[in-house]
């Protein structure tokens, strides 16, 4: 489904990703872990097409297409979804309006039927159950005045409505208490199936108790430093990131700069 080859990306001229290689197949759950500043959030944003990041080398193939050639909204309509680490507030626009527009844009793109407000309301009510969200949130302005946990739940509600092929959860666990974490993880698990894939970007192993990954990739200094199964996450939890950082620095010191 997704193939990332030698991906380099920079922000304000500073290189953050320095050669990422990653292959993701349908039905898989991948965790991207790593210390602060390792580039894991940058990877999520680059996949979503955030304008602040510049891809300087490499390629990303999504379902046979060059993802990097698509605008952010085209990517989303093709089925790439990023749950934001810091969801944006959009005053004056209700969740229901926002989601219906987004849903209909995708439907139109796929040549499927668009829904009117009443039809969409039914769909939204149904999907809101996935994240145990009350109907009152649907009428409120997008994320405005929402607590941290409510914002994250709202991201997963959007995922439930848009049914992406590839969902990238950017530190969705940050700022969540244990109950909210459970609700969010439950929601993701309900949406995950053999036809889609999930990338969980996280600093902590905690979320991975609930969303169990098939593969864990550890980023350090803009590269994948370690890869393994779900055990790797437990190892990191026990030992911290320092040993990986130290290992990476050692390796880089011994390799002359290209």
């Amino acid at each position, binding site marked *: 489904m997704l193939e990332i080859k030698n991906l380099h990306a920079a922000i304000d001229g500073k290189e953050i990703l320095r050669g990422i290689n990653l292959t993701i197949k349908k039905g898989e759950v991948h965790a991207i872990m790593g210390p602060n500043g390792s580039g894991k959030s940058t990877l999520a944003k680059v996949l*979503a*097409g*955030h*304008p602040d990041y510049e891809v300087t080398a490499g390629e990303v193939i999504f379902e046979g297409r060059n993802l990097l050639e698509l*605008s*952010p*909204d085209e990517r*989303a*309509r093709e089925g790439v*979804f*990023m749950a*934001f680490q810091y*969801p*944006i*507030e*959009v*005053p*004056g*626009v209700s969740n229901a*309006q*926002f*989601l219906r*527009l*987004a849903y209909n*844009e*995708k439907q139109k*793109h796929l040549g499927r039927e668009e829904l009117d407000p009443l039809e969409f309301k039914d769909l939204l009510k149904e999907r809101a159950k996935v994240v145990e969200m009350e109907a009152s949130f649907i009428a409120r*302005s997008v994320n405005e005045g929402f607590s941290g946990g409510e914002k994250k739940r709202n991201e997963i509600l*959007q995922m439930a409505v*848009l049914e992406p092929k590839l969902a990238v959860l950017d530190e969705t666990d940050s700022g969540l208490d244990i109950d909210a974490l459970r609700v969010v993880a439950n929601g993701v698990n309900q949406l995950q199936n053999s036809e889609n894939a999930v990338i969980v970007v996280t600093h902590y192993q905690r979320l991975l108790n609930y969303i169990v990954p098939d593969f864990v990739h550890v980023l350090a200094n803009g590269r994948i430093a370690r890869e393994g199964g779900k055990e790797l996450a437990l190892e990191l939890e026990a030992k911290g990131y320092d040993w990986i950082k130290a290992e990476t620095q050692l390796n880089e010191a011994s390799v002359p700069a290209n």
Partner: protein
Amino acid sequence: MVTELAKPQNKYHDAFRALRQSKPTVAWVELVRESAMDRFESLGFPTVHDEEWKYTNLGQLDKLSLLPSESSSNISSTDIADHLYPETVESHIALVNGVFRSDLSNTTKLGGVVVLDLFEAIADARYNKIVRHYLARNANYHDKGLTALNTAFLQSGAFVLIPGNAQLEAPLQITLVADSVEKSTANFPRVLVVAEENSSARIIEKYVAHGDVSYFTNSVVEVVVKDGARLEHSRLQFENDEAFHVGTTAAELGRGSTYNTTAINLGARLARHDVSVVMNEDGAECWVDGLYVVGENQHSDTHSVIDHQHPFCNSHQLYKGILDGNGRAVFNGKIFVREGAQKTDAMQTNKNLLLSPQARVDTKPQLEIYADDVKCAHGAAVGQLDQDQLFYLKARGINPELGKSLLTYGFAEEVIEKIGIESIRRQLDHIVMEQLHTGIQEP
């Protein structure tokens, strides 16, 4: 009498003489008209040298030599019906070119509310006194040339009297139509609304055009909200693209009364709205809100004065502007807190959204406080669409053009949602969402 032909105000002189012939009235109104004409002749149209008109140039209007019109027979009740809301089908009156038209009005659902041609009310012994007391009381023509001109051409208009304790269910719509099919004219609509003690009502003041040619609307609406009364006043300006619109709203609030007004300015080539609210009794409260939207070649100017003359009054003001193309807008908001007006709570905000680099807004919120125990705040902001919000919408598959419309709509919504009448809100939502980038007109 002044006879120099070079003076622009002389264009109106002959018309004024003709009016006095064709529409004679009672002595005190003759006197008002005459003294207003005198004031106009000495003041003329304001120029950009006048501090209050610094950014709004009426030069083009002055050149047009538009003369006062008669009512027109071009407008039918079907034309009026196009501009009504489901809530007002049986509670509306029409002024065509400023002239009251009972044949185009339907007051079935207005119960005990008195709705008359202002000129008839003047001649009616039951209402003569109240009209005399309030007409030209809040809309001062002594130092405002345009108000003077409107007052000089007083010949019709609407008089609305909401009796004490009346609770008006249906909103009253006043549709002010300009017949602009072929002839360019100057129209001087005049409205006097008196909401008596402890009454409660909603009024809609809606400006529309029938036709495409240029015209001049110079309207004056005076509102009196007596003790304990509640009035909600929606002012919708949908003039055509060629119109020059100058409008005055002058309100006076009694003890413990509330006045909630929202002005929506969408139409006209050049629009100016002067709104003033005087709180000259204790414990009154007002909301004076508005939205102006300007596109290519449009200019909109709002001047607001909220005058706290007595203690324990609250005022709330939110004005928002959306500017596209080379559109220009002006917001000038003054709040006066007079000596002795303790425990005043006044809040004023003006926010502007620039959708194009050629758009320009001049905003000037002003507070003048002469009391020491008050709570006052004001602020102004000018900005563009938020790039983070736009990216968020794109990341959900919404194309950038639609995303911009949605964010613009979201910006306007804070004002639109203040209007209590649902079908007006829906109409405005539709305009902001669908038509903003293709030119504003009433759907």
